[in-house]
């Protein structure tokens, strides 16, 4: 009987995680449309500033390193969940939440700074596509953070179950995916912007 439940949980896990994987791949297509829009519009500055003027490389590198480290820490949390180590999962998830929040704060500061200088999304087609692409990524990060916070509370209060592992697996996939998308935002938006 016990073996049966374990097996059916495994089948459920495989199916659910595969379904989530398919969702992530469709999300790839969403980001691809935004990347294509950005690539087409990046030179249409309508007399406004270009990427070369408004992007600050060290600031973006800091954001990138923070997000990469958070992707690393959620991966370790996933491994700890498999070892059924509740305390370690809670610690590593807390680290990930803090790093994710720090990333979000930095991104909002950048947006706020741009808008305050009159370079909001209304300034040019380039800035519209920039805010849409980076903002959509930021919304995903926000959703991921809320998801992670709820999961942290659940594990803190009720502990780790077999089903928790399935949920943590999906959250981990989601967070890794967001870091992969950010690699391309870092390269194509910011590094290309500075190259000219």
């Amino acid at each position, binding site marked *: 009987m016990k073996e049966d439940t374990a097996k059916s949980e495994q089948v459920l896990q495989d199916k659910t995680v595969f379904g989530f994987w398919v969702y992530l791949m469709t999300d790839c297509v969403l980001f691809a449309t935004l990347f294509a829009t950005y690539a087409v519009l990046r030179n249409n500055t309508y007399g406004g500033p270009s990427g070369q003027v408004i992007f600050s490389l060290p600031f973006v590198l800091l954001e990138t390193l923070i997000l990469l480290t958070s992707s690393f820490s959620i*991966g370790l949390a996933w491994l700890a969940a498999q070892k059924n180590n509740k305390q370690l999962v809670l610690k590593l998830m807390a680290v990930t939440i803090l790093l994710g929040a720090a990333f979000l704060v930095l991104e909002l500061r950048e947006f706020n700074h741009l808008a305050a200088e009159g370079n909001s999304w209304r300034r040019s087609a380039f800035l519209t596509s920039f805010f849409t692409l980076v903002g959509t990524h930021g919304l995903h990060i926000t959703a991921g953070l809320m998801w992670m916070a709820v999961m942290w509370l659940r594990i803190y209060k009720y502990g780790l179950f077999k089903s928790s592992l399935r949920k943590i697996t999906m959250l981990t996939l989601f967070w890794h995916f967001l870091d992969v998308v950010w690699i391309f935002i870092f*390269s194509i938006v910011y590094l290309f912007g500075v*190259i000219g």
Partner: protein
Amino acid sequence: MINNQSSVKPRNYYIGFGLSLLLTLTAYLLVWRHAQSHHAVFTDSSLRIGVIVLALLQLIVQLIFFLHLNFKQNLRWNLTVLSFAAIVVLILVIGSIWIMTNLNYSHAGYGKTHDGHTLTSPSQTNQYIIQDEGVQP
């Protein structure tokens, strides 16, 4: 990832993290050096290709070490969906850039031409296309 989780070791994450860090910093330093030297070290287009190659390498690193993709039987469908998404993404991005560059080429006042001219009026565009394609008016 997914089925054979117990086979994933923390080592994978350390390697993935280290390689990602290395690739990010390499791309960053190349571009930083380029900006410092006022675009003298590399040409803009070769550096763009370099940055894209480094980004794709990091994609592969993270797929292997963070998302634990491999070619085992139980992950075949995950790989199938991934390849399909990759094809759609490539068609979308390359297709959009291709079509819009062509439209820019034959319309006035929209951005720069591929050899750096800025066109501001329909007659200028006509002149440019006539010269570029060697057409006798």
